[in-house]
């Protein structure tokens, strides 16, 4: 273990959540490592070797993810996956993958520090998300496991629909933008700013 302190993108903001009147809960995940994996889905040897290390086949359906043990494998493209690992076992997974894929046409990059993962949870998460992106995250086809790259608050981001009832969504943003996105969320997720889409509502005046 390094001798130096680890500072996440939002370490300086972890303390401030108590006084916020938000309609959702949000926090920065600090227990994950990330690996950017490149290889071609139609390269059988690569797919097999990756599966051997990870214990599960890489997902090939667009915008899906697979969970195996503590590892989540997120589809990013036809030749790219983002693997999140528990921090404790991260180095092991990283070196195993690197080693196993040496002979394949592949690229394994440790990207544990490139992104901040903001975990959003609560019943109103989706309506907060649609305030910052150009697609409709409230649509029922965004089931747990779905992964969607997006422009959130004008920032390149990735939404991983982790769970539902209540919704849990991990919002991945590049590190340098995390503070801005956090500020954005503080405003748009305010409890007074609710939208309340598509539910039984009071009949308006006629």
């Amino acid at each position, binding site marked *: *273990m*390094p*001798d*130096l*302190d*680890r*500072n*996440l*993108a939002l370490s*300086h903001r972890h303390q401030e959540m108590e006084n916020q*009147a938000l309609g959702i809960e949000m926090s920065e995940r600090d227990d994950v490592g990330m690996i*950017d994996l*490149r290889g071609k889905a139609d390269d059988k040897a690569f797919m097999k070797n990756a599966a051997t290390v990870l214990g599960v086949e890489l997902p090939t359906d667009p915008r899906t993810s697979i969970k195996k043990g503590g590892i989540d494998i997120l589809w990013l493209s036809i*030749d790219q996956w983002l693997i999140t690992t528990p921090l404790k076992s991260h180095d092991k997974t990283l070196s195993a993958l690197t080693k196993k894929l040496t002979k394949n*046409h*592949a*690229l394994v*990059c*440790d*990207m*544990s*520090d*490139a*992104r901040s993962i903001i975990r959003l949870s609560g019943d109103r998460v989706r*309506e907060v998300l*649609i*305030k*910052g*992106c150009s*697609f*409709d995250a*409230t*649509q029922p086809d965004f089931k747990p496991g779905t992964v969607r790259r997006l422009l959130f*608050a*004008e920032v390149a981001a990735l939404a991983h629909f982790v769970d539902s009832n209540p919704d849990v969504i991990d919002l991945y943003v590049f*590190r*340098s*933008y*995390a*503070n*801005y*996105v956090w*500020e*954005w969320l503080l*405003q*748009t997720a*305010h409890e*007074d*700013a609710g*939208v309340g*889409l*598509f*539910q*039984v*509502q*009071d*009949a*308006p*005046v*006629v």
Partner: protein
Amino acid sequence: MSGKPYRIPSSRSQGAFGRLIDRDAALSFTFDDKTYTGFKGDTLASALLANGVRLFGRSFKYHRPRGVIAAGPEEPNALVSVGSGATHEPNNRITDVELYDGLVATSQNRWPSLAFDVSAINNTFSRLIPSGFYYKTFMWPAKLWPHYEHIIRHAAGLGTAPQEEDEAVYEQVHVNCDVLIAGGGIAGLAAALAAAEVGARVIIADLSPRFGGAADCIDGKIDSAAPLAWAKKAVKKLAAMDNVYILPRTTVTGHYDHNWVLMCERLSDHISEADRLANRPRHRLWKVRAKKVIVATGAFERPLTFANNDRPGVMLASAARSYATRYGVTPGERAVIFTNNDDAYLTALTLQDAGVSVPKIIDVREDTKSALISRAEDAGIEIIHSSVISNVETSFGGTSIEGVQIATRTATGRLAQPFARIECDLVCMSGGWNPAVHLFAHVNGSVRFDDTLQTFRPDQTSEAIVAIGAANGHFDLSTTIDESFDKGYAAGKSATGKSRPKKAVPPKARQDERSPLEALWFAPAKGSLNEGNKHFIDFQNDVTAADIELAAREGYRSVEHLKRYTTLGMATDQGKTSNISALGILADTLNTTIPAAGATRFRPPFTPFSLGSIAGTQAKHLFQPVRRTPIATWHHDNNCDMEPVGLWRRPFCYRHGTEDRQAAITREILATREKAGIIDLSSLGKIEVKGPDAGVFLDRIYSNVFSTLKPGRCRYGLMMNEDGFLFDDGVTVRLAEDHFLMHTTSGNADRIVGWLEEWHQTEWPDLKLFITPVTENYTQFAVAGPHSRDILQKLESTIDFSREAFTPLDYKSGELCGVPVRIYRISFSGELSYEISVPANYGLAMWQALMVAGKEFGLTAYGTEPLHVMRAEKGFIAIGDETDGTVTPLDLDLGWAVSKKKVDYIGKRSLQRSFLKGDERKEMVGLLTDDPKEVLPDGCYAVEQLLDKPPMKMIGHVSSSYYSPTLNRSIAFGLIKNGRARMGDTLQFPLEDKVVSAKVVSPVFYDSEGERQNA
């Protein structure tokens, strides 16, 4: 202003009047500082009318007194400012402003007061200022135009802009739906029911606070119930469905390509200011992608064109009915109805029921029969057929009506002799109805002229959008209901993809048949046209029938010429009440038909909406992201002047104590040159390229060769675009045989990732490699200066930093303080320098560790500006300074990095074009001013020959210029025509107040042998 009560007592007609107001909830508000009382449920219009106020504004040009003519968003006249200070908002239609307690409203475009407006004198001179008069005058003397313009500018404009910054927040949301319905009247509700029953995700929006549209103001029955009762039931049903979202106070402002719809929801404008929540958005802009759009926006009633038809007290017939029914307000005590269709008869009956005396209906048509007309006759209202109102008589100043003159309608001609006079204080006019086709027409929906309606109705479109009900030109209840259920069902069915869903049974509706309307575009008056009378078409912009005739006479005959010449339809109401009438007059004038005269185009928005909502959340501190490096908190704590670079903030310099910028820069440079300095380079682009063809690929991307670079080594590279111009540079490292790491400038980092991907995917897809940006994963610092090695050697590391083991342009990886790092021995400052790349989460701690280790060696943080001075001392170019998109590597004497051997790379062919290899190129040289203290200004030009005054022929400019503390003199780079051939020449740079001369020299000013960086 009379003090008479205009509120209909609640007792009248079993409480039939004022159904929207709560008579137990009185609200206090002010208009022009006078306090009034209204009720909850009132609009500002109904509350003021109830208080006897008739005068709301002054017109744009003639400053004529104006009342209110409508009850909805088409209102052209009655615009006021609402709110004060930070909530002040100009140009609100009083017909759309919901009353709240403490509302502050102010009239506009008048001075000193609404009742007495000095500029009303314009009305007296109106003959001098017909349409387009300004094109004909104010030309001599030319220098006086700014003065004329100043007066014109201050006379024009409506309300005033707010003085204080808006504190409200705004936001936007994106949703998709199967069926979006604009308009919550009977048609919209029916379509929503039909679509929702099929299971479609339906959004139905109405710009008003209530749904039901005209249901409360029409006759007929739906399933044997009153239309209003049916609407109430329908809304209740929709609200209980979780696949329906109902949005009141939400204007569908625009329809865009591929059924993308913009809506503006007003969340708090109707709430008293004290009760507004600071964090509740004021407006929410909805961006909706709908599979089907249904336009159920109804229709706008047309005014009739008669002399002085703009006087306060002249009102649309449907508006008068609406005020009585909804708000229990009678806008007058004695009303004359002027109509060319049956609908206004309902107004006559309603007003009479409300206790207003209705002595006469003036009907343009010959003796017409219909059930409604009979009802009016039965109610004892006298109907005068084949007649028109030929003039309106007013009190002094024109602020209220005293009577109207009646004349026989003549088939042709503009002159008429009135045969009767009727006393009245209210005129209700109806010229027929114009379907609100705006949304249908925004993308490319065409409209066609309907002879029966004498107006345009929707025709063809390539978008999945349909119009229903009145918006589609259907004014019969039963037709509307049937059509709405059909189209709602069809939309729901096709959007959900269900093959044969069950269709809800539409209710049976019936309504008395109407007799057809008869177009009347101009009511003749005594005297013709402009001779003392004004027949207004566009009320807000003061465009009269005479103006339209004048425009036609002068050749401005296409509709667009007409609009632009007269400003017709260009006001804030966008011609909702005026466009068709104007076309009618134009067609009459040109002796043609309306469709032949042309149709106007409709552009978003349907009604004006706030700029704040368009900015949405991106305002104030959220305007644009600030990208923070992992060292940001340290920079902040150390009094760093940050400089915006793209979205990043980068350290410019750090000011100690009372230092100014220049002193800080000097100190940082000297510390780095003499001891050691450290700079945060985290924003530099870092891109990994890996694969068997990575070397070949980089050879095509860069102008120099990378395939020969040895693993563990670094090389500086140049990138050109296909035009042959230099656009980025940086050091690329070969991490392994098949693995490279590219560095780019901060500003280009993202762009270059895209550039590489594009070339790989689209031009050379056969090359085997992956490109992955890793910029954000690493913090990068340069530790530079004679002591940099000492500092690194002090820290615990697996890397050998010795001079022998770690040579210039080496790359090594290993651990530093237990953290995995990549270190490159590269230098942009010209000093012994190591660039250290650290996983970002350890960046701050590593920076601090270096600071601690470097303390004894005088390690000093330096910013980008000191770095720039140092690179200039060394003769290094900077992208963006020495390059401006027109500069080739050869211009910058970087030919050594432009391969002649490689067969092809980006930009190679273009470099061979005649102009790029010509002999007139501007070449980069060093410049030393004759006076070493004189710093050439950035961007100043050298001239071929010094003349007394401009113009002078320029031969090149200064691209970088600094005072060098190292050399204790100024230095500069110039891009000078044939510069390298001028070595040793002295050039003249004429500035505003003096001429600076400088000698052309080599651009390397310091340590030309590189002894320091190689130390």
